[in-house]
């Protein structure tokens, strides 16, 4: 597998654009119930603090702060863009599907219908050392959802 298959255009774009980044400057919407999670990968120092705001069973906002490699940052950005507007159940199911693809060592293909832009991370599954990079914000989102919902 080539480097370009790992670092797809969408990933490189999102690693720079970082949708939803800027937690402290982004107040949670009024009336929403929030949950926040901090995740750290001690191996490489990737770090994400992520907050979800849930309003009547819908993800109203997903904001985060983080530092790390392009894959971890792009993955948080894609997640934030996708999650907003989803129902809590939908997001949980997407997270579950993302995890299944990422942990499959390339055996389970990503369905763009389900994962949207996050399907671009399919190639990461073949790099065991990078799976945690792609997962870190999704793990944080799952944890934050449990607190908010």
């Amino acid at each position, binding site marked *: 597998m080539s480097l370009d298959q790992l670092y797809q255009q969408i990933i490189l774009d999102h*690693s720079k654009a970082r949708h939803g980044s800027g937690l402290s400057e982004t107040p949670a919407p009024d009336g929403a119930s929030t949950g926040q999670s901090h995740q750290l990968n001690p191996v490489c120092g990737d770090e994400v603090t992520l907050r979800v705001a849930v309003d009547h069973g819908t993800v109203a906002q997903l904001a985060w702060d983080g530092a790390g490699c392009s894959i971890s940052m792009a993955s948080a950005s894609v997640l934030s863009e996708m999650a907003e507007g989803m129902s809590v159940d939908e997001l949980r199911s997407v997270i579950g599907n993302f995890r299944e693809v990422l942990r499959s060592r390339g055996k389970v293909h990503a369905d763009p219908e389900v994962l949207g832009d996050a399907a671009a991370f399919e190639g990461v599954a073949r790099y065991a050392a990078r799976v945690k990079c792609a997962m870190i914000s999704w793990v944080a989102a799952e944890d934050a959802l449990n607190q908010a919902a």
Partner: protein
Amino acid sequence: MAVVSTPPTLSRALPAMDNAEVLRIRNDFPVLDQLVNGRPLIYLDSGATSQNPLSVIEAEQEFYEQRNAAVHRGAHHLAVEATEVFEDARQTVADFVGAQFEETVWTSNATEGLNLISYALSNASLWAAQGRGDARLRELALGPGDEIVVTEMEHHANLIPWQELAYRTGATLRYIPIDDSGSLRMDQAAEIVGERTKLLAFTHASNVLGTINPVSELVALARRAGALVVLDACQSAPHLSLDVKKLDVDFAVFSGHKMLGPTGIGVLYGKQELLDLLPPYQTGGSMITTVTMERAEYLPSPQRFEAGTQKISQAVALAAAVNYLTETGIDRVHRWESELGQRMVAGLEGIDGVRVLGPAAGQDRIGLAAFDVAGVHAHDVGQFLDARGIAVRVGHHCAQPLHRRLGLTATTRASAYLYNTTDDVDEFLDAVSGVRAYFRA
């Protein structure tokens, strides 16, 4: 500022190493002969673990095929032979670092060696508190008011055991800071190492900065204070001529797998009078003289610290590794690697947006270089290099406090050994020069 020093020349004046010799050496290392991502493997991660020559692999295999038995027990033929090669290996490794046979203790790695010292010292404190042992042992005991001194550049293995020793005994942990170029602040060291200091632990050569520390100056500070000296020789024993007696340290540790040997074996050197005085760290079989249901008396070093069945095949293989280094000439290896290290730093410094940690080009360093690429995380740098078949280490290299001091969380490290050519370094530099463009930094 230290300038590049020339290691002492061998009595047998062998010519300096060159690429042609390195290519011959490489033939001895089967693992290096492979393609990674369609490119010939360039292994620049020997600071983490080194590769094994055939002679090491064969020594371990030969042991299992011809001599395998438990050592120091049993009167049968194989047991005698196994014991013989096991103890011959100890002598070989002892000679390599200028130690005596009895002062050379097998551990599973350097980390275990450091923990061994740390626990033996807190056991000494416990013994002393209960009136066990003599006056000399009481002098080794630590307690509130005593200080343990480390440096800001330590690997976690030479930091956390001392944090925990301080916790167990009530002693205080202090550290010698570094300056921005990665050298110890020796002016401050002179103030920090004082009459309260019971132990000074530091690395001979930094696994991140490549700095070679002034051992004799630090030992002199410790002697003035009456403190014990622990030397982390993980990054020096494999790469330069180490003489623990000349350096006059009390303890030194290193790992086999960083010096062409197998994993699972390391060495603790300790001055004999200290080793024979200290309580053991682990207890059990093979390390006792007399055992009753109530208590036990312990053998002197090295058996005192080698409880249970030992790492026999690994010890034999480590001796083969040491022989390989000796036959090549450790001073020649040192000089070659210094050249590779300088080439790395000079090249990296010339790449836009790359910041090299530690001594600048032209200053003394071992054959490694850790660096930051502006706007690109180390993990991405490592992945980019891997796509070109180049193996480097990324992360904090088990030195989080050092990275924090330098304002970084993760860096990329290239570390050379005797099987790397200048072409390897040039390929690596060429790859690094393409990193920022690829990641649009």
